[in-house]
């Protein structure tokens, strides 16, 4: 067990190294001189040279590469070019808001997705199955910003049920805070529901034809117990895999959702960095995302063992 965990963790290192190298190369592909791009055409030669020295652009590429890797290893992702604060600090400030949103979305996705998937699988080719398949395909087809804008227009602007500007600063009561969170969380959560439902349905269909389900039925196990104890438990592995793989999509969708609903978070941070051409902030964000994705991938692999005792740690 311990050696499996260790080996899995060690395997993450070369992957991380390749990703860091790709990010390093990508950032250096910015057309023209990065310092010139940041400071604009009017910049004096002295200030250009100063910024180049600050960014380490006056060093040979291999020196830049090594110091880049060393800095990442030390947890130093550099300073934002526009605010001067460290990237970690910038991200740390908006992260709670993004985590709150994505956690609410995952909750909604599992709350609706699992039962709907089970119901669809049990009524296979019946009308519940048919309707939920079509609805989930529509859910999967929505780009997050399209569904977000439509929800904003209908529920916030036309019907006035929710505030147009979500969690936009200031002191709010808890109820107001929840009202601001509701629409963006529903937007993300309903899209995720479509994913979870599809996977749950497929996984349940696979399990329901197994012999041990028939045996359990023959023994007189009731339908609730059959689904909860026998079928769903064994469907959890593919579901966990997909929820783990979905993390990347969820982050991308939450960026768009935060922009639409004007919530503080990674989305607005990225948009701001794009608009001010804050390359160090963008680079830092990419590194953080890469680390998160690799961490989630590794954790998903490790989680198999907790659900399925048959997974061999070899």
């Amino acid at each position: 067990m311990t050696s499996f965990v260790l080996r899995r963790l060690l395997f993450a290192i070369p992957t991380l190294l390749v990703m860091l190298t790709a990010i390093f190369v990508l950032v250096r592909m910015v057309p023209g001189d990065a310092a010139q791009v940041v400071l604009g055409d009017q910049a004096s030669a002295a200030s250009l040279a100063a910024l180049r020295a600050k960014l380490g652009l006056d060093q040979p590429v291999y020196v830049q590469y090594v110091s880049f890797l060393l800095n990442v290893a030390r947890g130093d992702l550099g300073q934002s070019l526009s605010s001067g604060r460290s990237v970690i600090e910038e991200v740390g400030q908006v992260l709670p808001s993004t985590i709150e949103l994505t956690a609410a979305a995952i909750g909604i996705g599992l709350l609706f997705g699992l039962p709907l998937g089970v119901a669809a699988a049990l009524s296979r080719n019946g009308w519940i199955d048919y309707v939920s398949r079509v609805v989930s395909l529509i859910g999967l087809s929505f780009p997050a910003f399209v569904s977000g804008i439509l929800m904003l227009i209908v529920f916030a602007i036309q019907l006035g049920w929710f505030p147009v500007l979500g969690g936009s600063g200031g002191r709010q009561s808890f109820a107001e805070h929840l009202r601001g969170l509701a629409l963006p969380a529903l937007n993300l959560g309903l899209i995720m529901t479509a994913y979870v439902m599809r996977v749950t349905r497929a996984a349940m269909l696979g399990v329901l034809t197994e012999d041990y389900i028939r045996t359990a039925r023959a023994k007189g196990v009731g339908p609730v117990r059959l689904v909860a104890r026998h079928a769903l438990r064994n469907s959890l592995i593919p579901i966990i895999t997909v929820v783990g793989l979905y993390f990347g999509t969820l982050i991308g969708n939450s960026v768009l959702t935060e922009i639409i609903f004007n919530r503080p978070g990674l989305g607005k941070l990225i948009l701001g960095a794009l608009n001010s051409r804050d390359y160090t902030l963008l680079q830092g964000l990419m590194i953080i995302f890469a680390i998160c994705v690799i961490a989630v991938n590794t954790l998903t692999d490790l989680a198999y063992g907790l659900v399925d005792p048959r997974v061999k740690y070899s």
Partner: protein
Amino acid sequence: MSDAAAPSLESRPGRLWLALSQNRLAWIGLALLALIVLVALLAPWLAPYDPLEQNIAARLEPPSAEYWLGTDSYGRDVLSRLIYGARVSLFVGFAAIVVAMLVGTTIGVISGYVGGLFDQIVMGVLDVMLAFPTLLLGLMIAAMLGASLENLIIAIAVTEIAPFARVARAPTISLRERDFVEACRSYGCGPVRIMTRHILPNMMSDVVVMSSLWLASAIRTEASLSFIGLGVPPPTATWGSMIREGFENILDAWWLAVFPSLAILVTVLALNLLGDALRDASDPRTQSR
């Protein structure tokens, strides 16, 4: 594991037909897609106005008999921009998928054919690319390269390489061991000839089947990037940039955002309906379900 790739070895020219005959929803997808492509092709004849023609006297007009879908903040006709926007969205998505297919399939076939440590490293990197948020990957690349049509295509193509490589790799691994490849090798075929003449033709149908699903994803990414402002520069009409402009006027002109939103939704849904049916038809395990 090698069994999973086995069905791909038989060529199934009637796969599209099979998918359509089994699945009524696929017909809807195909019909919608044909309609959208037709509208894009016939744009100059269908559009009632010039999509770039500004008319300040008629700005932010709601939908009416004169302007069916209203006008935007420059007084441009939304319907005409929507029709011309279909061209850009479809072209960018299609071009990106072709690039991703060429690069991804090449990587997948070589990686699967060579095998060993090389294969493991390539697959490890592709796994991370697959898990990396598509939108953020595209966003970072588009941001670093700068906003233009070519860079947008490159950025979207990069996000779709990993799935192509994976779909190409799996059948390559089983084809590599088949008798006809072995036979060819025994009378002196080189690896390049085996890969291009014997392996590639036998797995191309798998790759093509998946591309309609990934075309849907590419069109979604294009719209998202355009919405963020990293798409084809204005004044060219694209659905994503139309939504971006609509979003800026969301409080007083709902029609600006709603119609291009619906256009994207219908296009992606049509591709997904068709892609799902094609995938089900090519996977014997799902046919019985």
